[in-house]
């Protein structure tokens, strides 16, 4: 390992009001090192990286880069110093091309004009050199997530980054794509680039990192070399106690509650996103739907929950045909829905919790009579549900915006699973939640299953799918390409999610 560290962080402290996001964090990254930053959601990883990238300024502490102190007032300073970052949510402009995104703010010029030809060539050369195959003239909105990630990496390399920060890079990738990414990372390391790899996945850390720094509640717990540690030790450092896997009993499936037949759904651009999907979800079972983002899962969910009208095929819930009859009809037929983006779609953030909890049944008695709301009934029901689902941080009159992500999700679940709902479509139900909240959601899903509900679980996290599902469907390019029991291996699923594998279409 080379001698002088490329990057040194000393005593970085950052407060947001009463919350201390980073508390005296020290971190060293050597030249050509892959350094993993491990921690739960909310442990302060992202804040630390925003400090390092000049997006927020620390309240205390010092950054040294290449042996010299570095003052970062904006991302520009970080870029100029040689720091590149690939954000968890890509910073790419969908309507622009790969080339435009890469050269943005550092464009090759020809007189006053942008030299598109040269830019194109630069991008091609760069992608060849690092083995990152991208098509320079493709628009971002028409390429896949893995491709987009490569564009982000190229963006940093184009700016001659010597230190590359990858923020949760594998969250959106299949296992195969992840291993391709690791190949790229290794090749970058060989060419002398240092990498900070942020994640909460222990196996990945052990596979790719040279050293690991574990953060918890804004503090550095330890920095350890990869050789000489193991998952258990890391997990304890990360959450402060040993982690338990959720226990679940064997499924006792009953009759099919949700039946989808030959479903065809168009996306917002009018293209076929779901191309003839058929499956059942039976009472008392959780069916996991695996697949890479953008293979028709969202459209499938929207068709089942009545948000879009299917182009062909049927959706029958508990004996009612609900295809294309609207969100209300779908809910009335017993389908609850945890949407994938709770802030944008699950909740009206400016509504109170009471108002949010009654979003679905506002037209029902006793919540309203003859179109007039009954504030007392609304508050009463809200109070009951808030207690039942252990929502903390506010009462019925609190605005949803004020709650933490986990508690917001509890509100959504309380609303969607209360009453007579027998079917639940859960889309990314744990995205962005911390470990405790994830555990709560998982337990709740299993409890609902015990009560005989049919659950369709859509997730990009194979861990989650494998942990919860009784059956697993794989979706690829709008079709269900495989079906498995819960004992299938990650690598088989990964292959099928990429369109490979031997499984015939079901």
């Amino acid at each position, binding site marked *: 390992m080379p001698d002088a560290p490329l990057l040194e962080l000393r005593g970085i402290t950052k407060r947001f009001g009463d919350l201390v996001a980073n508390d005296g964090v020290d971190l060293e990254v050597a030249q050509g090192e892959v350094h993993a930053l491990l921690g739960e959601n909310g442990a302060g990883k992202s804040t630390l990286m925003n400090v390092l990238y000049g997006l927020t300024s620390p309240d205390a502490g010092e950054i040294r880069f290449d042996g010299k102190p570095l003052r970062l007032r904006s991302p520009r300073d970080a870029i100029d110093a040689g720091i590149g970052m690939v954000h968890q949510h890509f910073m790419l402009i969908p309507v622009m091309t790969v080339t435009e995104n890469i050269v943005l703010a550092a464009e090759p010029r020809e007189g006053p004009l942008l030299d598109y030809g040269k830019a194109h060539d630069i991008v091609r050369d760069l992608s060849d050199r690092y083995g990152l195959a991208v098509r320079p003239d493709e628009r971002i909105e028409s390429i896949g997530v893995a491709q987009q990630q490569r564009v982000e990496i190229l963006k940093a390399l184009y700016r001659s980054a010597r230190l590359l920060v990858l923020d949760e890079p594998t969250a959106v990738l299949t296992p195969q794509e992840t291993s391709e990414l690791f190949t790229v990372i290794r090749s970058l390391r060989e060419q002398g680039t240092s990498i900070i790899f942020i994640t909460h996945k222990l196996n990945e850390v052990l596979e790719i990192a040279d050293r690991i720094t574990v953060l918890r509640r804004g503090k550095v717990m330890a920095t350890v070399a990869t050789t000489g540690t193991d998952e258990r030790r890391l997990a304890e450092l990360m959450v402060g106690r040993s982690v338990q896997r959720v226990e679940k009993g064997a499924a006792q499936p009953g009759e099919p509650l949700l039946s989808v037949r030959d479903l065809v759904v168009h996306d917002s651009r009018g293209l076929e996103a779901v191309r003839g999907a058929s499956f059942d979800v039976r009472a008392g079972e959780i069916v996991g739907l695996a697949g890479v983002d953008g293979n028709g899962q969202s459209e499938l969910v929207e068709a089942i929950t009545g948000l879009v009208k299917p182009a062909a095929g049927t959706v029958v819930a508990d004996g009612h045909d609900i295809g294309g009859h609207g*969100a209300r009809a*779908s809910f009335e037929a017993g389908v609850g829905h945890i949407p994938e983006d709770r802030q944008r*779609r699950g909740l*009206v953030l*400016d*509504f109170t919790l009471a108002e949010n909890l009654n*979003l679905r049944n506002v037209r029902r008695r006793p919540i309203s009579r003859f179109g*007039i709301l009954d*504030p007392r009934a609304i508050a009463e029901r809200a109070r009951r549900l808030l207690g039942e689902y252990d929502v903390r941080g506010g009462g019925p009159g609190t605005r949803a915006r004020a709650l933490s992500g986990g508690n917001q999700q509890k509100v959504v679940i309380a609303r969607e699973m209360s009453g007579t709902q027998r079917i639940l479509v859960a889309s990314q139900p744990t995205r962005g939640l911390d470990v405790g909240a994830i555990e709560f959601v998982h337990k709740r899903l299993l409890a609902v299953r015990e009560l005989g509900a049919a659950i369709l679980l859509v997730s990009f996290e194979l861990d989650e799918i494998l942990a919860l599902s009784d059956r697993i469907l794989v979706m690829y390019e709008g079709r269900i390409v495989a079906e498995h029991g819960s004992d299938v291996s990650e690598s088989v699923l990964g292959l099928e999610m990429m369109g490979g594998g031997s499984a015939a279409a079901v």
Partner: protein
Amino acid sequence: MRDRATAWLTAKSPAVLLPVGTTLLAFVIGGLVVALTGHNPGSAYRAIFNGTGLNYLLPWTSSEDKDFAALNLQQTLIITTPLMLTALAVALPYRCGMFNIGGQGQYVAGIVAAIVVGSHGAGLSKPVHLTLALAAAALAGAAWGGIAGAMKATVGAHEVISTIMLNWIAIYGAQYLFELNGPLQGPLPDVPQSDEITSSAKLPAVWGVLQPLHAGIFLALAALVVYYVLINRTVFGYEVRAVGYNADAAGYGGIPVARSYVATLAIGGAFAGLAGACDVLGWEFHIVTNDIAVSQIGFIGIAVALLGRNSAIGIALAALLFGGLQVGTSARALDPTVFPPQLAGNLAVIIQGLIILFIGAQLLLVYAWRARRRRGAEPPPVPRVDPTAA
């Protein structure tokens, strides 16, 4: 006690302090303009205040001035009436996340319908005829607003653009109807004027003579109550607010978003149509093409709604303020040696603009207050809600 007062202030400060502070600030800047052009802002504002007729309510106003003040106050309230209604035309769609600039067109649509129904059917009894005329105006306004709503709901046409276009179409279209040889021109062959409203369709007078305050003001106040109940106490209002805050989430929750768009713009249009009916059935009794071209009631309604923060009580007070500004800056009350009335009219527009500007940037005052608090000062006391703030 102090803590409770502070808590109340903190909770209510955006609702009360912002509009009041904003208004004061606008008047101060307006006063600067007055001063810089060589006039005395103090006496100009005092004259404008007296012109609103609100001095009628002051105990020390002498009995001689009282008659004149009464006349002015009646006129202020006559203007306040349609302003409340056109403000509602903005407020309701605003709660649904839309900005309805089409109040003027919807108001004109209401005028046309009120005239057509109000000038015919002389044999009808007053309650029947009046109800019919009001209903026709509301329907016409609703139709005009509903077009914009339908365009938004079906093809996603931005309501700001479509309502602007509909305004011009209504204004020119209505002028066409009543112009010389126009299809609805009244009995005078040489005058581009509509038929007269028959007495059975006139709103009853409630205060004053000649051009008295009419019962339309009760209609407008009732509309404010309807609006309040609709928004805060009904399923419809709940759904409208949900769509306004987050149309995506509302759609996920099973609320018919497109229908909310159409319904709120249509109901808003109905309010504006009623405003037109109040003017025509309350004091105008006919319309000349010129009146259509120069009317600004619908546009000022935008300012009223914004200042009133789309709340019923806020709209009532803001409408009184703007109605007062309209009347107070008129030449009748303003001694030209104190302040030229031609300038006063434009001053009123400047003040309206400043109010909208500052109310849009609510942060301005919040920051000012925070800055005071940081320095350890007490929060400012709530000024008495004096709508003229002169």
